[in-house]
């Protein structure tokens, strides 16, 4: 009886595990901190209005990020436009309408597989399908369609999880007062699932914001001295510009790339903040 209890040792193990978890958390935060500090040190001195409002140049002091920033805003907006309705509606179908049979399971598994396909493969697909076959050229819309394909699985999976988390009792209550499937979905399921769907959408768009490989594949330009005026214009994007600057030998360009990273991070934080704000407002009503 006495021998089996061993309380002191069990508590010691519990403490050890807790310290280990804290250490791992600190490690992640530390890495992020070092990264942000490094980037800020190099980039902040270059970050001013001129940097945001100038086009790239071969002279570092004249170079700016305007075309890449606008290219990214165009790209992410159009990607959202294509991917969000498609992804959410696919999730609604799979979760609310489709019978849970072998075909549905097959589709679900393959959507999960698609989420794991390397982004360069989507670039190849985009090049063949949108740039060449549909003859959209190296336009923003071709890039956005490629990005939409890339993030679609992420949106579908996140939206499906959010919809699945809506309690079945709520649907039954609505059906029992003579609602159709559409009325149940619109009035009860989607509003309840909205915060979860939004989180998934923001995560997916953040990914589109940072992806470089598929854009290079479909031929987004690296040097561009204009802002896209429409979806058919050629474009460049922030990660491409950042990548391009890091490949230059001059150290000034490396510092410019750090400034570009800061801009990218700010865009990302603004997107997240918008989502937090929308969720906060949604939870109050």
């Amino acid at each position, binding site marked *: 009886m006495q021998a089996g209890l061993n309380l002191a040792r069990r508590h010691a193990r519990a403490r050890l595990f807790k310290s280990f978890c804290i250490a791992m958390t600190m490690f992640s935060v530390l890495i992020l901190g070092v990264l942000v500090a490094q980037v800020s040190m190099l980039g902040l001195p270059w970050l001013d209005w001129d940097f945001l409002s100038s086009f790239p140049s071969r002279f570092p002091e004249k170079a700016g990020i305007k075309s890449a920033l606008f290219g990214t805003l165009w790209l992410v907006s159009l990607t959202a436009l294509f991917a969000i309705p498609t992804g959410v509606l696919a999730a609604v179908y799979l979760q609310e309408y489709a019978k849970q049979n072998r075909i549905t399971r097959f589709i679900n598994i393959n959507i999960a597989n698609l989420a794991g396909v390397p982004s360069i493969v989507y670039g190849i697909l985009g090049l063949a399908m949108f740039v060449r076959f549909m003859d959209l050229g190296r336009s923003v819309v071709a890039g956005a369609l490629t990005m939409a394909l890339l993030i679609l699985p992420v949106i579908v999976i996140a939206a499906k999880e959010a919809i699945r988390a809506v309690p079945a009792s709520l649907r039954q*209550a609505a059906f*029992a*007062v*003579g609602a159709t499937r559409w009325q149940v979905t619109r009035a009860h399921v989607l509003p309840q699932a909205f915060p979860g769907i939004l989180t998934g959408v923001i995560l997916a768009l953040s990914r589109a914001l940072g992806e470089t490989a598929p854009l290079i594949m479909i031929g987004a330009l690296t040097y561009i001295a204009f802002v896209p005026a429409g979806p058919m214009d050629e474009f460049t994007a922030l990660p491409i510009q950042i990548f391009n600057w890091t490949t230059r030998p001059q150290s000034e360009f490396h510092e410019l790339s750090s400034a570009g990273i800061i801009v990218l991070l700010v865009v990302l934080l603004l997107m997240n903040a918008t989502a937090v704000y929308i969720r906060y407002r949604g939870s109050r009503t």
Partner: protein
Amino acid sequence: MMNSTVSGSPGNSAEPDPAILEARNVCISYGENLAVNNVSLLIPEKKITAIIGPSGCGKSTLLRSFNRMNDFIDTVSQTGSMTFRGEDIYAANTDPVEVRLKIGMVFQKPNPFPKSIYRNVAWGPMINGMRGDMDELVEAALKRAALWDEVKDRVDESALTLSGGQQQRLCIARALAMKPEIILMDEPCSALDPVSTARIEDLLFELKQNYTIVIVTHNMHQAARVSDYTAFLENGVLVEYGETDQVFTRPANNRTEEYVTGRFG
């Protein structure tokens, strides 16, 4: 040996009450699993019929088949016939939405919409295009559900601020606002305290003036207290069906007697 030739119509009285719902040779299965086995019964109009039986005997499955709530479970299949005022509930041209307008339902756990009290009651009539004074309709439904006095000053507050018992009465009001003819109740008091349970039981007596009520319960005392007729189900088989008095005091079947006297279940 189970009595497999139980009479489908309740009671031995000379003049049985007119039936509003009729199940004939109904079998319901989940995949390979038979949950309701060849049940035939008549539900009399404007009476309270209780369905009792041990857990997993198929009573909820049977109840939910009356307003086609099993449609949402992909693996469920059903045979036999089921009619409401002589019309086939499961005919190819029967719209399940229309069935549910006539046959409302109250669930085991109170499940109000996470919206205002008012909207909980008004949503059903609204989406079904009911015209007229919505405020009046909401008030009438809440009064009938004996909830009006407690909520009349705060109908715009979230339904989730109500207590469990109040929420369940709100769910009853929500069903009543649809002006159904039948209300199916699936263990409506199992999540409630004794005081709330007593209030709901009182309410049932009021409601049976105007509505037919079918209530599933695993509480035999509740069945004995509130119902006019009682059906006893075991392993999906209708063992006995009759006037509640008779089922509880002079059951025709041994199994019924053992169950209602608490020897098993």
